[in-house]
């Protein structure tokens, strides 16, 4: 019998600790599949964040270096500059990427560091128990915005991916959603493209994944996936924001 589907080699044989319906395990798998398909497992160094995915190093079967909260792109810069032939990815949540680590992210992108960031946006701080994130949507209730996010008090959701797309050092920038199998496959295509852009030395690449957090959204997993389409994708439009390989010649 022909084997058509298997666990990626770049994932260890360890059960995920993530909550039921969480998007992290899907995104882990997509990254691992891409690493396998590109045949780069022995060249990859992954940098997990502080947050729910801090234990990502227990799941990826590649070299992994933990980073302090928000410093992934700085640590990644150190790795890439010291070992330009290696392939570096950071795995970062919304707080990591767009609050505490905004400076590190923005400047690594602006320097055109040839690293890839996978940005998991679930509009809430997961591990600490559902506090407001920089990407929390207007009106969205969290434990630290109990009245719902108000623009005059808590400000607006930060569109970090859109900001990065404006930077000359960024070569590939995309936003995807995990709402449906088709959208998940589109996310995978972009993750692959992001790694390829890095390998071609074109600059910084970023793939944002809108991801469900049923636990802190206080809904069922099925409802959470629906909310991705009905709420998050409206706030954060999906698609490829920048792709330097698609530039017209001349």
């Amino acid at each position, binding site marked *: 019998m022909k084997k058509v589907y298997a666990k990626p080699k770049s994932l260890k044989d360890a059960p995920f600790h993530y909550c039921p319906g969480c998007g992290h395990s899907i995104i882990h798998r997509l990254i691992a599949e891409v690493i396998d398909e590109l045949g780069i497992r022995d060249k990859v160094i992954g940098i997990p964040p502080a947050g729910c995915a801090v234990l990502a190093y227990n799941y990826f079967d590649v070299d992994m*270096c933990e980073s302090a909260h928000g410093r992934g792109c700085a640590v990644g810069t150190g790795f890439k*500059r010291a070992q330009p032939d290696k392939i570096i990815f950071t795995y970062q949540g919304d707080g990591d990427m767009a609050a505490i680590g905004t400076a590190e992210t923005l400047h690594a992108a602006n320097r055109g560091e040839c690293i890839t960031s996978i940005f998991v946006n679930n509009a809430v701080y997961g591990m600490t128990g559902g506090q407001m994130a920089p990407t929390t949507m207007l009106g969205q209730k969290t434990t630290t915005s109990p009245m719902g996010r108000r623009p005059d008090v808590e400000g607006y959701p930060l569109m970090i991916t859109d900001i990065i797309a404006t930077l000359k050092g960024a070569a590939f920038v995309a936003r995807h959603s995990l709402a449906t199998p088709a959208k998940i496959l589109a996310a995978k295509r972009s993750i692959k493209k992001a790694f390829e852009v890095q390998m071609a030395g074109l600059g910084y690449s970023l793939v944002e994944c809108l991801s469900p957090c049923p636990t802190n959204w206080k809904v069922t997993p099925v409802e959470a996936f629906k909310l991705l389409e009905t709420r998050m994708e409206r706030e954060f439009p999906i698609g490829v924001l920048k792709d330097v390989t698609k530039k017209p010649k001349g």
Partner: protein
Amino acid sequence: MKGTNALGEAAVQAGCRCYFGYPITPQNELTEYMAKRMAEVGGVFVQGESETASINMVLGAAASGVRAMTSSSSPGISLKQEGISFIAADELPAVIVNIMRGGPGLGNIAPSQGDYYQATRGGGHGDYRTPVFAPASVQELYDLTMHAFDVADIYRTPVLILGDGMLGQIMEPIVLNKKNKVKLPPKDYVLDGAKGRPSRIIRSLILDTREMEAHNWKLKRKYDLMRKELPLWEEFMTDDAKLVVVAYGTAARIAKGAVKRSRKEGLAVGLLRPMTLWPFPDEAIKSVAKNARLFLVFEMNTGQMVDDVRLVLEDSSKCVFYGRPGGEVPSPMEISRIIGRYWVQKEL
């Protein structure tokens, strides 16, 4: 050679090939020197967007197995503490230079020794220590920087070099000593892609309390070994000294001048100069304390190292303090006047 340049050149000669830093006075010449030299030797120079970013770049380079360094001055070193704590927890080698300035806050850019506590008590959060070297001349900036890179590799630890704006700015003739031949442990922690070996993890998160406790004790055993093997100090005319001045760095240069003056006046005075601030040269203090009747600790702050001297002496009546904080640099004459005053007061 200028102090900052000697330090930078020592780093280059020690094989440092990655430098990350953010401009801050009074150490900009070092950053600029590294920008030029890293380009010449095919190394990496990145001006980070902040001190925080720079120290985390050091972490990435150190985990790559490359000798890496960053430098800053007091306020910038505060920002680096997060990264230093992680580097200590991850047991990675790195060299961090602090050319101290007056503080707290922005303070000023004059020579000061206000960061002794921060440097010798770990500095960042958590239960760790970092070796701290305190050069007092341009030659020592060169020699101790080379040594610092070996120490970092041998013990897999962040190492601090503590200087001040005066040391960084002065020019003195030096001998460009050759690199020591030291046997270094294998770098079996390096993340360079899991080729032909199982994948590796570098992490500081240890959720299991027993595992965390074991890691803390493991670090402690390493620090105990450092306490035994690393202390360095200089003694000047301590053999028959009744009063011994304890000072480091720029303060020790001034103190040496003061001791010479006091000797001319016929007072049996000596100088004990710690060259490592952590581990502190406890044994040297104990040994000198057998004959000395009074220790005068002189620092360019309001009194920090004096605590370590008192801890060793276990008799605070044998120890007095004189300090000039705020970037004030006293003359040898001022210190010899203080020596004279205590000589009379304590009936030495």
